[in-house]
């Protein structure tokens, strides 16, 4: 009677299709970034120099490491090492929280300097500077939202591993969450150089 039949490949394929939509979502912001960078290279250079590259680099490593731990947890689950798998999942969540905390400090410093979308300070700055920070806040904000959703997702799957609903025989939910998490990492791999590194090269 049941028409529920398992198609893990289909499930992964569907997940990939969903990830495409995420890429397009961010690429809208990348289009804006590329065009504005081309119009105001010098303003962008100056504005980018105001970002905290140390925190940015640190966060890049944090996110790369979280990707590693989540991948390890998939292998652990496939090898039926449930405890290790759970450990790696928790590690990932911890790293994700560290990322958000870093981001919080970064943002609050900027906000305390009067730099935030719609602020008077930005309204008085050069047009390219205002555009840079507006894009910066929206892009990192949207990315941060994705990190947050990722945390919720991984915690849910962790719970399902504990209850045995996700297991070596039926790992597809963990695999799909991993795909999602890697994509969030992948987007950061581009967000980081776009905002923190590349604009600086265009000084004069």
């Amino acid at each position: 009677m049941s028409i529920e039949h398992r198609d893990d490949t289909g499930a992964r394929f569907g997940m990939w299709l969903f990830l495409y939509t995420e890429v397009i979502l961010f690429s809208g912001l990348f289009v804006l970034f590329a065009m504005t960078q081309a119009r105001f290279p010098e303003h962008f250079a100056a504005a980018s120099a105001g970002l905290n590259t140390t925190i940015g680099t640190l966060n890049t490593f944090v996110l790369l490491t979280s990707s590693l731990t989540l991948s390890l947890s998939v292998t652990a689950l496939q090898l039926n090492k449930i405890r290790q798998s759970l450990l790696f999942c928790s590690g990932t969540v911890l790293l994700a929280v560290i990322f958000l905390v870093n981001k919080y400090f970064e943002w609050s410093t900027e906000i305390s300097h009067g730099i935030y979308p719609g602020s008077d300070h930005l309204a008085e700055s050069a047009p390219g500077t205002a555009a840079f920070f507006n894009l910066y806040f929206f892009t990192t904000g949207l990315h941060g939202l994705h990190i947050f959703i990722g945390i919720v997702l991984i915690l849910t799957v962790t719970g399902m591993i504990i209850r045995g609903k996700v297991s070596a025989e039926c790992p597809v939910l963990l695999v799909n969450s991993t795909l999602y998490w890697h994509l969030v990492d992948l987007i950061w791999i581009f967000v980081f150089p776009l905002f923190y590194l590349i604009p600086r090269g265009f000084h004069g």
Partner: protein
Amino acid sequence: MAEEHKPVSYRSYFVIWLALSALSGLNVWIAGLAGGSLTAWIILAVASLQAGLVLSVFMHLNQETKMFRLGILALLIIVAVSIGLTFVDVLYR
């Protein structure tokens, strides 16, 4: 099922992670050279290499069938076209 993925060893994941971290470090270093659009393209190339590693190993694309890769191709073309054709306007106004 033949379509199921084989577990990837901890070791290969670690190697990829090391490579990714090194490449990020490399990018930060290149950015310090401040060479205008040349460094921009190098940095983007390095980032794309990182993306390739994440896609193929972390995201198991190397174990998936052709239809997964065709999809990625379609996606990349659409993104490149959107950015490229918009430049045709913005740069030549």
